[in-house]
């Protein structure tokens, strides 16, 4: 792809965070991204902007400033109430052309990973997926983007030297949000949606929010996951109790999902999701490589298994040898005692 000339590159300034919006609300991962992007903006001595597209997002302006953005760029339109990725991409490409940010960061969620590749291709930009580290190269001033590859077996650092903006998606729970400061004020810019930008490609007919699983896997600080050793759907109710007791989410191995004990959106691993929890409790999961690549970057791993010698029991920080049907109820009793 044709590189931008140095003169053109120099016209690009400021760091943008594209907000993760669901149901008109800016999601927590956005505050994490603002925390990381604040450092980048300070290193580049430029402004930090947060771009929020959605229905009712102008209500979030104070929060956007409070979490560290200098400028809130708001596209508040009822036509964005449901996720119309082509519309959001068209608006973003237009705004990038108008305001020329040099860095653009977005959450590596299902929405972010649908939206930003479309934006990057259309605006001739390099894009790095699922970054776990972002830094400014002191020499060139370029963004250094570090991401796990091959299921986390290699960390690759990627640079997009000749194209602007430099774009990256970042996994939830990797970056730290700044403390919310209600006194922090900033500028606010309102932009509209152009005729023809929305509804040109798709109509969202129906939206379902999974109320039974209030904590989703990618946002969960604590995950209780089950595998073949759970032996049935009934066992997952026990795992759910433990997850509820610690405010966590329920995960599963492919074996448990394929057996029909738990729906696919709980699957962790190569053909499921990659998670980044603080604590991952693997119950009756032997730890095939395809599962390990989805959870091995969790901070603290607990394994509970009758078999003392599985890959998961060897990987774990704490390996509990025993029957999960006895251990988990005992843990619940222990947690209830203060």
């Amino acid at each position: 792809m044709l590189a931008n000339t140095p003169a053109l590159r120099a016209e690009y300034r400021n760091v943008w965070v594209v907000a993760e919006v669901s149901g008109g609300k800016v999601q927590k991962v956005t505050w994490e991204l603002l925390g990381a992007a604040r450092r980048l903006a300070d290193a580049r001595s430029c402004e930090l902007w947060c771009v929020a597209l959605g229905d009712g997002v102008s209500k979030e302006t104070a929060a956007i400033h409070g979490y560290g953005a200098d400028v809130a760029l708001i596209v508040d339109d009822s036509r964005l109430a449901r996720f119309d990725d082509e519309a959001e991409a068209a608006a973003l490409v237009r705004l990038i052309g108008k305001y020329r940010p040099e860095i653009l960061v977005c959450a590596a969620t299902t929405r972010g990973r649908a939206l930003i590749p479309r934006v990057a291709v259309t605006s001739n930009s390099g894009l790095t997926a699922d970054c776990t580290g972002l830094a400014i190269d002191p020499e060139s001033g370029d963004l250094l983007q570090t991401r796990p590859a091959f299921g986390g077996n290699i960390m690759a650092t990627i640079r997009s030297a000749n194209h602007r903006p430099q774009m990256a998606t970042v996994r939830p729970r990797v970056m730290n949000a700044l403390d919310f400061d209600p006194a922090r004020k900033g500028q606010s810019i309102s932009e509209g949606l152009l005729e023809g930008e929305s509804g040109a490609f798709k109509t969202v007919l129906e939206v379902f929010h999974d109320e039974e699983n209030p904590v989703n896997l990618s946002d969960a600080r604590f995950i209780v996951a089950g595998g073949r050793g759970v032996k049935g759907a009934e066992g997952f109710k026990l795992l759910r109790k433990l997850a509820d007791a610690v405010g966590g989410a329920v995960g599963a191995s492919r074996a448990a999902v394929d057996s029909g004990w738990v729906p696919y959106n709980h699957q962790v691993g190569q053909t499921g999701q990659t998670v980044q929890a603080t604590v991952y409790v693997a119950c009756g999961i032997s730890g095939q490589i395809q599962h390990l690549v989805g959870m091995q970057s969790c901070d603290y791993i607990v394994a509970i298994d009758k078999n003392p010698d599985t890959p998961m029991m060897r990987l774990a920080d704490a390996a509990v040898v025993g029957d999960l049907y006895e251990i988990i109820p005992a843990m619940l009793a222990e947690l209830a005692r203060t």
Partner: protein
Amino acid sequence: MKIVVCIKQVPATSDAKIDPETKRIVREGIKAVTNPFDAYALEEAVRIKERLGAEVIALTMGPPRADMVLREAIAVGADRGILLSDRAFGGSDTWATSYALSKAVERIGGVDLVLCGKQAIDGDTAQVGPGIAAQLGWAQATYVMAMPQVDEGSFTAKRMHEDGWDLCRIAFPAVVTVVKDLNQPRIPTLKGRLAAQKVEIPTWTAADVGADLSKIGLDGSPTRVVKTEPPPARNKETLRIEGSAADCAAALVRELRQKSLV
């Protein structure tokens, strides 16, 4: 209806090797398989063909031996395969890859639907599917877990999200990326496998698809890998907890509390 299924040949194991020069993946010498997500895309294409009638074309970009994944696709019901292969494509990032694949889709001509796996298990980027849609200026639906209705002019797609799902109606042409929940891929029959071995697979070069050389390969890629290193080391040793359930639970909860994890 004409459906293209994009398939990637990926290393079967996780023992990745990196070329110290280009910092990109060395694919020689590692057993290669069809990217698992792509099998669901292919199965959906074959099911649409069985229901409505369609031509299903398997498309891959890779080295000459990547024809293997196309033969596997033909064995389960693809009508033909096209191998996009040229040294000039080497080192392409997701921008350049989506450009090259979009040029092949244009060359095929009259395509209604491009189906892809949501991501490849080696790169894990999920960027090529929506990238193809953007290159072509087509509609897209990502993380698709069901396609309940497909007819001549449009289809519905159920998209998976972290907090639930949504259902949308999209007119063709479109690019759809799929997750595992979509279907259960069939196993090829022996007869199908044998027949697929005999099929001639055309190889298309960059010139064949009219690709602009400044937009492909390492030089046509906006991103560049500048460094690779092992991930931060995991734990040193495992704390082993054994004994009665009550003792185990007490020891584990004590450990978690000590580390302020609960």
